[in-house]
């Protein structure tokens, strides 16, 4: 568990996007502003050296949370603290620079995350140059070679262009770029979702090795529960902009609390063909522009009652040590479920 203060501490962050029509159209059609609440009050901590995963389906806001943490968007409210420093309060580029050096991001699409016109060695060296970490060209070259070797590529690959590499190799280059400024914290936005399963295995193994070797901390975003199970220490399940359950990884999979978590686990295809019974999955993710009242999951929930329709549940600790935002869990109305997952 955490030894000392967490490396990253996120408190009640939120972010809305204005998806209204243009001002003129709104005036003519007399329509109000339309705000999309992509993230609506998310809080979590990540201890140094650990991996926290955020998992959920499309539209749940996990990618937005990643971008908020890394500074690509500013939160509409809430705070983000990196080693005790409140980064949301910093405005000037000069103040943010030393923090930016210490965290980096890996993206989902291996084909769009590398500039097609730059050589690989320039791509990898860019963070070093941007933060002015090394001045000597030869030193820089050696560092780039070292990074390429670290991700199991050859130093000669530095001369090539991204299109000469496969998807998996491009993700390695992305990882090399992310590591070049010696960061402590990596935000990984679905880094293996676009890769074949055998390539994914290589990348996940590499990421685990690097975490051990370099003492990295990961915020890992994914929609694939099996991947999340393999790589995480703790898992947060997101639905329509909020975290509905937060627990230690093995515990979440062995004893899921929130009805949505159970539904997600149930939807994982049964590769072992154990013939486990499945509760029928109900409905689809509602339109985030017009979310249901109270608990946003209630239209799809087998245990929803009147309170669920009226009142939005807060994250509360459960007897098993996790946290869940669910009235039924709080009231003890849901029978405990033992899944076929590995015991906690």
């Amino acid at each position: 568990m955490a030894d000392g203060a967490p490396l990253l501490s996120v408190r009640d962050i939120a972010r809305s996007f204005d998806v209204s029509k243009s001002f003129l159209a709104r005036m003519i059609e007399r329509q109000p502003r339309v705000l999309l609440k992509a993230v609506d009050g998310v809080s979590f901590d990540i201890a140094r050296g650990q991996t926290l995963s955020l998992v959920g389906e499309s539209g749940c806001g996990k990618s937005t949370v990643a971008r908020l943490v890394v500074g690509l968007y500013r939160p509409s409210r809430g705070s983000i603290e990196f080693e005790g420093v409140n980064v949301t309060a910093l405005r000037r580029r000069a103040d943010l620079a030393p923090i930016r050096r210490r965290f980096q991001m890996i993206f989902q699409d291996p084909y769009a995350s590398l500039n097609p016109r730059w050589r690989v060695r320039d791509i990898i060296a860019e963070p070093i140059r941007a933060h002015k970490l090394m001045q000597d060209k030869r030193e820089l070259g050696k560092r780039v070679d070292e990074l390429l070797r670290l991700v199991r590529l050859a130093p000669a690959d530095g001369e090539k262009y991204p299109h000469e590499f496969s998807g998996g190799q491009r993700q390695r280059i992305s990882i090399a770029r992310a590591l070049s400024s010696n960061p402590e914290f990596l935000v990984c936005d679905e880094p293996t979702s676009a890769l074949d399963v055998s390539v994914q295995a290589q990348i996940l193994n590499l990421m685990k090795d690097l975490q051990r070797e370099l003492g990295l901390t990961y915020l890992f975003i994914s929609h694939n529960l099996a991947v999340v199970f393999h790589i995480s220490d703790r898992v947060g399940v997101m639905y329509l902009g909020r975290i509905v359950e937060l627990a230690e990884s093995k515990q979440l999979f062995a004893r899921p609390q929130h009805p949505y978590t159970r539904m997600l686990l149930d939807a994982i295809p049964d590769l072992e063909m154990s013939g486990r019974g499945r509760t029928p999955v109900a409905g689809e993710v509602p339109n985030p522009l017009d979310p249901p009242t109270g608990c946003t999951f209630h239209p799809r929930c087998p245990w929803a009652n009147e309170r669920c329709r009226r009142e939005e549940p807060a994250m509360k600790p459960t007897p098993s040590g996790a946290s869940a935002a669910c009235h039924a869990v709080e009231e003890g109305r849901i029978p405990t479920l033992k899944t076929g997952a590995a015991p906690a």
Partner: protein
Amino acid sequence: MVEVSDVSAASAEANAPGALRRAYDSDVFYSFRHSPITMLAALVTLLGFLGAIFAPWLATQNPFDLRTLSLMDANLPPSWVEGGEAKYLFGTDNQGRDVFSTILYGSRVSLLVGVGSVILALILGVGLGLLSGYVGGSIDAFIMRVADVQLSFPAILIALLIDGITRAILPREAHDAAAVYVLILSIGASGWVQYARTVRGSTMVEKNKEYVQAARVIGLHPVAIMLRHVLPNVMGPVLVIATIHLAVAIITEATLSFLGVGVPPTQPSLGTLIRIGNNFLFSGEWWITVFPGAALVIMVLAVNLLGDWLRDALNPKLR
């Protein structure tokens, strides 16, 4: 169908050694080598540019140096027609100027103005397009409205307007001396919108790609991101527009000079020559206007064909 793109990626293997070899092997150059019309167009364009650059050495006389002219030789027909002289290949005009030489010297001005205005339009248009696309918001709205307003006027009219203003401001001698630059300014300023719109569209696409976001995470300044990351990736269509714009610019300059509001008579361009020759068309001295006219048409056609090929060749790569 995933595998089809894998097939084309596989076939475009780039294990080739040097950059030159890579360029030779590339799909773009391949289509060039296999299109005779394009190669011919490129050759003609090249000859045109070379002829203009080396005019003082290629021309038999300097038609704008009054001392070398002889009124005795005025209105001579082309050398292969009866009455012509071998010295004057395409004949002479009413002042004894060798038409061939005037074409060479005239195309200097035409090409100078053409290339100059394209460069100006390109810098202005690409710069504004990048800014507009990347920053968005009210700056984008403002620039695009200006572009829209400008587009509602024909380019010629705008060029005329700018030209007229400078004429009014500057005294005559200064205007004559600066005429070429004024023309470059007016044609360039009337042509930036195409570039800006295309670049803005491409920038808006590239801006959302993860490599730009990666650069933002690193903490680069937006201008650095625009110039170092986005610009190289949006230049493709710009080259196509520039080639076609070159043809348009040359024609525009010719039109303005034909109308008499372009370059002064002391530095005639092909347009001026056509105008001058027009007066003699019906009195039988057809060569004074036909040859400059033909030179203009051939040049513009060649550049247009080159632009057409470039657009098609670059197309599969333009995303």
